[in-house]
């Protein structure tokens, strides 16, 4: 569950990125955040993962008040979130397999259990046959799928993706969205920021529209 209550984010230069945001996303729900670029979509997602802190208001994620979390507790919050970043943040000095393995190493999995989980995650995104290759040899769509595999390998209850289809052509983008829907169907809470509403393809979903830092629904 993700719950925002009167959240404001104001940057030191005086720019108000988010103003008085309030919404609740129940466990197992799937929602999109849309809006023009600069509307505050990324900021909102970064607040959930405590990459940034709100100026005021409270953010509850899985029963924890993220806005009041001590810095020592943040890593453990993030381990329960699957994050797909806008700039992907793939490590190009290691194989596809090792990229997906990293979250498990951080959680302290022993290598045998970890290997099974990595393969399962790669299988889900259709990259199992590429596990030994370097990420640089993957296409744009495959790199995005690699990011998704890394986000889900820890089996998080919440999946958060920032513009996961921004650099992909329509077919690839559809693929990715289908993938997110399948995670939603097995009970994962999914929150996706995108400027491309057409990807929905008619599926009924909750949509939060952001306009200059304010929710407009």
């Amino acid at each position, binding site marked *: 569950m993700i719950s925002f209550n009167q959240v404001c984010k104001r940057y030191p230069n005086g720019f108000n990125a988010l103003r008085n945001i309030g919404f609740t996303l129940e466990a197992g729900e799937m929602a999109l955040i849309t809006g023009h670029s600069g509307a505050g979509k990324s900021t909102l997602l970064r607040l959930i993962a405590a990459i940034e802190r709100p100026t005021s208001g409270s953010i509850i994620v899985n029963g924890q008040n993220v806005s009041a979390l001590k810095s020592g507790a943040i*890593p453990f919050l993030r381990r329960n979130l699957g994050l797909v970043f806008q700039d992907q943040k793939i490590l190009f000095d290691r194989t596809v397999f090792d990229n997906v393995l990293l979250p498990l190493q951080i959680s*302290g999995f022993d290598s045998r259990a970890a290997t099974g989980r990595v393969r399962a995650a790669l299988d889900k995104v259709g990259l199992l046959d590429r596990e030994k290759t370097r990420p640089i040899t993957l296409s744009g769509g495959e790199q995005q799928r690699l990011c998704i595999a890394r986000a889900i390998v820890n089996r998080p209850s919440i999946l958060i993706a920032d513009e996961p289809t921004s650099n992909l052509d329509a077919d690839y983008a559809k693929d990715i969205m289908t993938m997110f829907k399948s995670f939603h169907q097995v009970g994962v809470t999914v929150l996706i920021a995108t400027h491309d509403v057409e990807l929905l393809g008619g599926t009924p979903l909750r949509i939060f529209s952001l306009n200059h830092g304010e929710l407009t629904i």
Partner: protein
Amino acid sequence: MSVWAAHHWYAFVLAFKRLAGAPLGNLLSIIVIGIAFSLPAGVYVLLENLQAFSAQVSGAPQLSLFLKLDADSDEVAKIGARLKEHPQVASFEFISRESALEQLKQDSGLADLVDGLERNPLPDAFVINARSLSPATLKGLRAELQKWPRIEHIQLDSAWAKRLDALINLGRLAVLMLAALLSFALVAVTFNTIRLQILTKRDEIEVSKLIGATNGFIRRPFLYFGAIQGMAGGVAAWLIISLGIHLIDDDLRNLTRLYAVDLSLYHLSPEDSLTLLLFSACLGWVGAWLSVANHLWQIEPN
């Protein structure tokens, strides 16, 4: 395997991978550390050898008691009897002036010169081994014997050994100072190596933080790296000293044999070797820790 063990194993393996990842650069760092450490450790080895040598040569300190030249045999016998009864004297040996002259002739190779002397310039002498070897009792005994009649001069043979001891102590102090200075060098070398590593691993650190790595998780491989590099530097220092001893030993033995002394160099004892390795590993760890503490907080994901 527990989470704790898994984390440490991961950090340890990663540190080794990073070492192997840049073999030339890391080898050079290790050699620099080794050379820096071989200096104080080498001087220490030298001092240990010198001390062993001095103990071997000087043995227990002795008192040499020289009589006046005109002391006659009765007086000599009287002094001998008094020495026998003295509680502080363990044993003594009488060297008559004639046998002393004979020995001088044989040992010094100055036979011609000695033969040319009009009269024997050497006095009768007693060489005394005292019961106690403490410098204070030896001094007291010397002062007491000095007051006896017909005594010209008493010499404490331990004087030069004492001087050597003082010299060795001075050397020890130099070793400590050298070690302290070069320890800073090791910390500095590790600090910089780790700083460079943190800069090149920036992406990895950032991503790790984003997906839930604690600071400890990120810090650990660097600390292991510092400790491993420090210890490898210690091993390098040990090998440098071994090489030095190996090169010097034969020549030194030939040299000392000319002076009728059999001297061969000892390496660091196992305890000292272990101390060297642990010490260098600790310093590497400290350097890495300082570096990580200084640089890691600058990398915050955004």
